[in-house]
């Protein structure tokens, strides 16, 4: 298993380490997932996400190339900003979801999921033929930690002696923390205000320790998953995949009406189903793969992710359902170990903002 520069720090904090996409990552610390989750909703938490991959795309054709190869419009992305995007395949589905940062007119950093870096890299290289761009895997040059929660900005302002009030959502800013250069992006995957910090691997432990000493709760991948699900964000391998048409999901806004690789298979397709949020009305927790039916038991689809919301204590899920039952308020059933449990289609996030 690969280790991030923070592996020893996680061990010292008593983390439970698991194999995630070939990386030895903390799933939780001794205080537990619920505690970590609530720390982020109510105060501030810090996650090691250094397993994510970073690809540099640079060159005179960087914009036309990324407009062609990714679904969002990289041409609309201003220098010093970030943008959520997706990498399509030629079957109407997805290779990965991505975050793009524009560092200069002709210079972008593409952040991909840990398990997908190599396929993303491969596809970008294949599609780059004929474009004046250079693609470099910078994954080993970056440690990445996410400082998330309503207290994140204040904590980082204290540590960096910077005013972050003017830094808008999706904007980046270069600061120093404990003498270490840190690029902060006001982005995240929790539904809360927060920042993702790009750090040289050699500085990662120093910055992490300062953030933890300043009061951020160390949070593992378990809380990362419950937070993103509660916020209604997709996870590749659950809500998104090679067979997922993003136009049938709440994330259809990412797909911009322009020429792009694989458009023909995606744009005109009608998969006959939609990705929706579910709130369970009966007792039980829906899990990935559980069947969803109508009230007479006719199959409608299946659950992609589910948990008990640590914040609301309700069982929540995302699921594919036939288009006939995709409207908010529709009543369906989730089959939990043979028992049909009533659920209602709702629009995430699953908690009040």
């Amino acid at each position, binding site marked *: 298993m690969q280790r991030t520069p923070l592996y020893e720090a996680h061990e010292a904090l008593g983390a*439970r380490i698991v194999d995630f996409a070939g990386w030895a990552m903390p*799933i*939780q610390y001794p205080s*537990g*997932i*619920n505690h970590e989750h609530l720390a982020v909703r109510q105060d501030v938490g810090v996650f090691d996400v250094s397993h994510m991959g970073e690809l540099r795309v640079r060159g005179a054709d960087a914009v036309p190339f990324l407009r062609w190869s990714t679904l969002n419009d990289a041409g609309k992305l201003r220098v010093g900003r970030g943008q959520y995007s997706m990498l399509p395949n030629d079957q109407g589905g997805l290779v990965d979801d991505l975050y793009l940062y524009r560092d200069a007119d002709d210079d972008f950093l593409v952040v991909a999921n840990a398990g997908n870096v190599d396929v993303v890299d491969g596809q970008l290289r294949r599609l780059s033929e004929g474009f004046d761009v250079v693609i470099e895997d910078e994954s080993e040059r970056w440690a990445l930690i996410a400082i998330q929660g309503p207290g994140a900005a204040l904590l980082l302002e204290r540590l960096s002696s910077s005013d972050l009030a003017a830094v808008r959502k999706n904007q980046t800013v270069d600061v120093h923390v404990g003498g270490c250069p840190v690029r902060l992006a006001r982005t995240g995957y929790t539904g809360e205000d927060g920042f993702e910090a790009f750090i040289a691997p050699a500085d990662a432990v120093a910055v992490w320790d300062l953030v933890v000493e300043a009061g951020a709760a160390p949070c593992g991948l*378990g809380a990362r*998953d*419950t937070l993103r699900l509660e916020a209604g964000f997709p996870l590749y391998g659950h809500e998104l995949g090679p067979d997922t048409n993003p136009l049938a999901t709440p994330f259809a806004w990412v797909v911009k009406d322009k020429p792009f690789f694989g458009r023909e298979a995606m744009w005109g397709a009608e998969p006959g189903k939609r990705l929706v949020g579910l709130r369970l009305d009966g*007792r*039980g*927790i829906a*899990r990935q793969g559980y069947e969803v039916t109508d009230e007479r038991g006719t199959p409608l689809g299946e659950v992609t992710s589910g*948990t*008990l919301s*640590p914040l609301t204590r309700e*069982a929540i899920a995302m699921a594919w359902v036939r288009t006939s039952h995709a409207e908010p308020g529709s009543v369906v059933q989730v089959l939990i*170990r043979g028992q049909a449990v009533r659920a209602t289609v709702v629009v995430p996030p699953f908690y009040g903002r």
Partner: protein
Amino acid sequence: MHTPDSLRYVRSHEWASAPDDGVVTVGISDFAQDQLGDVVFVELPDVGRQVAAGEAIAVVESVKTASDIYAPLAGEVVAVNEGLEDAPETINSAPYEGGWLFKLRVDDPSAWDGLLDAAGYEAVAEAD
């Protein structure tokens, strides 16, 4: 891990108290609750159900996953811990006391002696 000597255990991480008038109390071990993490939901068997040793008869769900709970001995379910419905986290805080799951009137009380003792169970759990 905390493993009381007064109890017997099975490899699937349940404990059973010594038969009292033929009735044993069943729960999951401290090791098991620690591995599961925050318990958020419990599904218990119906009282009166006849169960075989090793039969999956309850479910304990943590934030991340659902785990089957197996009957350590054959018998009849005579009580379930209804307090867990509102406070499933008791399984984490008191796995051997308030976090018990169900009581079985066992078919053969002497079978309890054949289960793993604390040292035997710890050896199994450490190898897991």
